[in-house]
C-alpha cells in the first residue's frame, strides 16, 4: 500500500507544486491522476521515488517511509518502484536488451553491469518480457531505431524487470497516436492485473483514464479536487479540475466507448 500524507513540494522558484496531498492507494489498484498541465502530477509521482525531493510530508510504501530514507536505502526502495516516462527516456544509443536489463541495475554490482554480465535469470526474464510485449525480434536493435509505441513497450519492460510493487507512470501516451495510446494503456493495465501491481498513471486524456483506471484522482493547483470512480467525472467535476469548458463532448464520447465494449 502506498500512503501519501500531507505531501508538499515547493520549488526553489517559490512555486507550490503540491499542497498537503493526502492519498491512500491499496495494493493492486490502478489509479489515474488527471489534471491540467502544471497541476503537479509529474511532481507527485517524482516525489514518491524522490527524483524530486518533497519539501514536507511523507510517502510510505509498504510501511517504509520513503521520505526518510538514506541514499542507500532509497536506492534499495527505488528497485521496488518501476517508472515509465512520457518520452520513453530510453538510453537511445544502447540496444533494446541493454535498456531492458538496465532495470536490474539496482540489483547488480557495478562491474557486472559494466561488462553486461547480468545473471542468467535476469536475461531469461528480459527475453520473456520482450516476448510478452511482442518485441522479441527487436532485442538486438538500438533503441533509437524503434517507433514510439515500440519504445514505450521497451520502457514498460525496463520497469517490469525490476519486479516492482508499484508502477509510477508519467504521461505514457502523450507522444503516441490514439491507437497506440490505447494499446499501451491496455498493455499497462493487463500487466498490472497479471502481477497485482499498484499503479499511478498520470494522463492528460480523460477518456483513456476513464477506460482503464479503477479510480480517478483529479489534481488542480497541487491539491486533490476529485477522488472517486471514473463514472463520477461529470461536467461539473471536470470544470473543477480543468476550469470552465464545454465538457459534454468528452462525456458523450465516453458513453459511446462503453457501448462498444
Amino acid at each position, binding site marked *: 500500500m502506498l500512503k501519501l500524507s500531507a505531501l508538499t513540494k515547493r520549488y526553489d522558484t517559490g512555486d507550490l507544486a503540491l499542497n498537503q496531498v493526502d492519498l491512500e492507494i491499496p495494493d493492486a489498484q490502478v489509479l489515474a491522476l488527471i489534471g491540467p498541465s502544471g497541476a503537479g502530477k509529474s511532481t507527485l509521482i517524482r516525489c514518491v521515488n524522490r*527524483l524530486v525531493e518533497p519539501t514536507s510530508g511523507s510517502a510510505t510504501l509498504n510501511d517504509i517511509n520513503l521520505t526518510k530514507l538514506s541514499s542507500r536505502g532509497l536506492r534499495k526502495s*527505488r528497485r521496488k518502484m518501476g517508472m515509465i516516462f512520457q518520452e520513453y527516456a530510453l538510453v537511445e544509443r544502447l540496444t533494446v536488451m541493454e535498456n531492458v536489463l538496465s*532495470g536490474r541495475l539496482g*540489483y547488480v554490482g*557495478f562491474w557486472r553491469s559494466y561488462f553486461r554480465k547480468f545473471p542468467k535469470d535476469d536475461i531469461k526474464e528480459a527475453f520473456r518480457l520482450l516476448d510478452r510485449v511482442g518485441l522479441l525480434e527487436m532485442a538486438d536493435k538500438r533503441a533509437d531505431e524503434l517507433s514510439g509505441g515500440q519504445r514505450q513497450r521497451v520502457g514498460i519492460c525496463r520497469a517490469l524487470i525490476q519486479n516492482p510493487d508499484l508502477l509510477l507512470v508519467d504521461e505514457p501516451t502523450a507522444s503516441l497516436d490514439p491507437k497506440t495510446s490505447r494499446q499501451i494503456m491496455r498493455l499497462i493495465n493487463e500487466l498490472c492485473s497479471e502481477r497485482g501491481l499498484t499503479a499511478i498513471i498520470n494522463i492528460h486524456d480523460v477518456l483513456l483514464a476513464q477506460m482503464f483506471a479503477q479510480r480517478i484522482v483529479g489534481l488542480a493547483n497541487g491539491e486533490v479536487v476529485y477522488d472517486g470512480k471514473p463514472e463520477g467525472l461529470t461536467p461539473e467535476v471536470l470544470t473543477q479540475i480543468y476550469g470552465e469548458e464545454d465538457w459534454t463532448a468528452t462525456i458523450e464520447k465516453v458513453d459511446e466507448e462503453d457501448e462498444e465494449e
Partner: protein
Amino acid sequence: MGAVMVVINSGNDIEWRRRTTKKQIGIWLGWLVGISIVLFAWSVISEKTVWFFVQDAPRQAADIGSRMIPPKWSYITELLVPVWDTINIATLGTIIAMTIAVPVAFCAARNTTPHNSVRAIALFIIVSSRSVNSLIWALMLVFILGPGVLAGTIAIGLRSIGFCAKLLYESIEEIDESQVEAVKATGASNIQQMTYGILPQVLPTIAGVGIYRWDINIRESTILGLVGAGGIGLQLNGSINTLAWTQVSTILLVILVTVFISEWVSAKVRGAII
C-alpha cells in the same frame, strides 16, 4: 526583458521597429569605433613596415621557389624515421591527453561534477593547458627532459588536455537528462548512472574529439622539431639554416602528404562513428 522592440500606435496606423532609436544609434557608434580602430592599427603597421623589403617580396619568393625546384627526392629516405616519430608524437600525445581529459571533463561538467571545488580545479586545468601553445610546452620540456621525442609527446599531450576536456565537458552538459533520470529511477548507483545514462550519450563525442585532436596534433608535431622536441621539424630547421632549399621542398611535400593521409583517416573514422 530580452529584445527591446518598439511599437508606435498612432490612431489607425501601427508601426513596428526592431530596436529603439537610442539602441540603434549605439550600434552605429559601435561600428564607427570598431572601424576607426582597424584603420588606425593599419596605419601603425604601415609605418613600421619597411616597404622597400615588401616591394622586393615577389622577386624573393620567386627566387626561393626556383631554388626549391626540383625537390631532392633522394632525401626522402632520411625523412622516413622523423615522419614516423612525428606520427608517434601525435598519436601517443593524443592518447595521453584523452586519458586525462575524460575524467577532467566529468569533473568540469556542471551535471556530473562531485563538488564545486573539484569543478574549479578541473576548469583551472583546462584553462592552463589551453593557454600555453604546444611549442612553448615543448621548449620548457626540452629543458627539463632533454631533447627528443619524449618531450614532444608530453608537450602535445599537455596542450591537448584542455582542448579535449573543454569540448567534452560542454557535450556532457548538453546530454538528455531524462535518460539519466530513468536509469536513476531503477535504483542504479551513481557510477552506474554514469556508465548507463551518460556515457552512451557522450561516447560519440569522446571518439570524435579524440580523432579531431589527433588530426590537429599531426600538424602541430611537425613543427616541434624546431625546438628540438623530435619529429620532422628538426630536419626542416636544419635544412632552412643551411639554405638547402631542395631539401626544404621535399620536407614540405612529405608533411603535406602526411597531413593529407591523417585527414583522410580521421574523416573515415568519424564517418564510421556517427
